[in-house]
């Protein structure tokens, strides 16, 4: 979400609406016999308009549950949610005359404060974080599928290492497609002699496998960078530098691939974190807003009754 020029209409509308409400409120609050009260006509208007806005904002959740309903573009709803939700807070404050009341209303007000605050925070987060996300995570994937993708990365890494090991252990069939190509291109049609590159190197291959088992796979299979050396970019770089020293140059591209896998994993971890930030506030916002709506409705009933 980007709060930009396209929001101008909403922004102006909200400002105007709010100004209007304030203009009405000031004399009202000054003149009303017992001060501004929810039960006064204006108070009720504020209350009901505010609640209507809240309800509208809350309906976004419902709207999202039925995305295909042709009841207005989700974007419109979102903007409504954002701006009407924003306006609803002062309206409700006006409604209560800046008093939080007792028990039910106080609970309600505090919940609303939390909902409002989390909403503001959320709006800010959703304004800024996507850009960070985009800039820093070129390899992001679908958040829900991170676990699955991680598993696939692990498989890919295993495959790569198997390939390298096969090359190192001199299996012509297994791995030396590239090598054979190198051999073939080294000599012209006539002058090729023997491709002598296939020299077995068991210790290196063992070390590579060890790296896979003790470093790479634990890192790839577990979410988060904690406790794994590959988790930090600098250390990972150092380790791969070491691998490059260890392995013959014809396998360096595989090492690059492995490093790339780690990079992707690192990005996925980061995505995990960012996603939690980006959507974590919803864990507060949504449940509380439901509670607010519920209690608000109850409050309305009770208030109308008594």
């Amino acid at each position, binding site marked *: 979400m980007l709060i930009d020029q396209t929001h101008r209409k909403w922004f102006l509308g909200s400002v105007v609406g709010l100004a209007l409400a304030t203009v009405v409120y000031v004399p009202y609050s000054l003149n009303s016999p017992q001060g501004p009260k929810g039960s006064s006509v204006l108070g009720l208007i504020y209350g009901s308009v505010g609640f209507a806005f809240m309800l509208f904002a809350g309906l976004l959740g419902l709207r999202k549950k039925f995305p295909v309903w042709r009841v207005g573009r989700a974007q419109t709803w979102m903007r409504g949610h954002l701006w009407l939700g924003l306006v609803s807070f002062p309206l409700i404050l006006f409604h209560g005359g800046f008093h939080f009341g007792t028990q039910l209303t106080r609970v309600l007000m505090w919940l609303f404060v939390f909902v409002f605050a989390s909403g503001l925070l959320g709006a800010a987060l959703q304004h800024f974080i996507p850009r960070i996300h985009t800039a820093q995570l070129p390899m992001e994937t679908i958040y829900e599928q991170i676990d699955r993708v991680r598993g696939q990365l692990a498989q890919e890494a295993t495959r790569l290492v198997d390939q390298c090991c096969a090359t190192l252990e001199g299996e012509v069939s297994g791995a030396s497609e590239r090598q054979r190509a190198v051999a073939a291109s080294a000599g012209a049609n006539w002058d090729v002699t023997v491709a002598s590159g296939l020299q077995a190197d068991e210790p290196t291959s063992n070390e590579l496998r060890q790296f896979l088992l003790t470093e790479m796979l634990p890192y790839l299979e577990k979410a988060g960078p904690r406790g794994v050396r590959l988790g930090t970019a600098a250390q990972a770089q150092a380790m791969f530098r070491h691998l490059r020293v260890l392995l013959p140059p014809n396998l360096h591209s595989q090492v690059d*691939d492995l490093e790339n896998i780690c990079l992707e994993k690192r990005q996925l971890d980061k995505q995990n974190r960012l996603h939690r930030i980006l959507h974590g506030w919803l864990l507060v916002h949504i449940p509380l807003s439901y509670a607010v709506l519920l209690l608000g409705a109850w409050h309305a009933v009770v208030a109308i009754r008594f």
Partner: protein
Amino acid sequence: MSQRTRTTKTLAKRIDLQYFARPHPFRRWRLWLSVGVPLIALGWVVGQRAEGGQKAYSSGPLAHSHAVFTQQCGLCHVARTGAFFAHVSDQACLTCHDAPVHQPEQTFTPQCSSCHVEHQGAIRLAATSDASCMQCHANLRTRDGQPHYAASIGGFDRQHPEFSVLAPGRTDPGRIKLNHYVHLQPNLMGPNNTRVEMSCDDCHRATGSGETWPYASTELHSAALKLTSQDLNQRGSKAPMVPPAFAWHCAACHTLQFDNRFGNAQVPHDKPEVVHAFLIKQFGEYIAAHPAAVHEVEASNRELPERARIPRVARNASEWVEFRVEDAEHLLWLKTCKQCHTLNFTGGPLPEVAKSSITARWLPHAEFDHQAHRAMACTACHTRAPNSRDTADILVPSIQICQQCHREQGPMKESAEGRCFECHQYHDWSKAKRTKGRFSIPELRGTARLRMPKN
């Protein structure tokens, strides 16, 4: 260079196409919370309900007077049978309270709750807002179309007219000659020839503090006592000043001796007839006891100058009594009594004492609590009193003096209560009727079911 290729296909193939059908923990959490938190809220509401209390919906704590039945909303919020709404009707209030009408001429009677706003916490319900009054008084219409006072009042400090007693030309109707100026002079001759200096509260007090009046008669006449104690007990803290009474405030200095033979014996402070009878009785008794005295020539009496020239000798005891009474009365009527009272010699043997006509309440439609103002010097408000030499002077302070402190309220205004109810009563309690209590303590406290009266 890395050989890994990212193509749309490889990327998309990694994704389980139905992933969104299985909620991710994150979404599951959201769902549970979204269900859970409203449920908790609902539970709370229901819990409150189950507890029986409806306090939770209370828009605020009740005033002290009603706090007892906080849990019993139904006491006031009486729903009509079958109706949803349970607004507080006047009837509910009238169950316990009588609310005499304000003014027979008023065109509109507001609902109780419109002035007595409940759920505002421990406030006095009587402390209604000015706005309640201004509903009418801002632009007063009466049934007869004749507002008696100002027709448009905005508040105590806004368009409130000057106290009517202070209207020009108005004088104190009191007939007791009192010179405040003289009384406040230093070095006055006090009782028993002592010198005294008087202060206001030697005579003006709001309540009987139990303290004795400094100038009260040592031997009071019962009649005088009776009067004062009635005055003292009737009106609570907002009682007006105790009206000055001879026995309490004057008698110590203004002694009523009538004859030297009786020392300092005094005549009762009563009607001339009573005094006359007293004198006859006194002298009669004296002559009876001192028959010799009939013939004693009276030394000239400085105090009665008219009489000094002709000493009269009684012929007999009764004559003596007659003379002596005459003399004493002469002294009393022309000097002692006349000092304060206005005596009319209308032809009868005895003068007629004019009614004292002391005004007990200067502001009949308002209350003023001197006690509340005790911190101030009397003259701070009654500024004219020290220089008042004339009984006719009305020494009630101007409203402007009040308004110096009593203004529109607010924390920044640093003012004393300025709302109407501070001085004015809405209900005309003089017309109050008795109400009948119906509730038991458990009913009120909410521990027992409320039996609603059938309408």
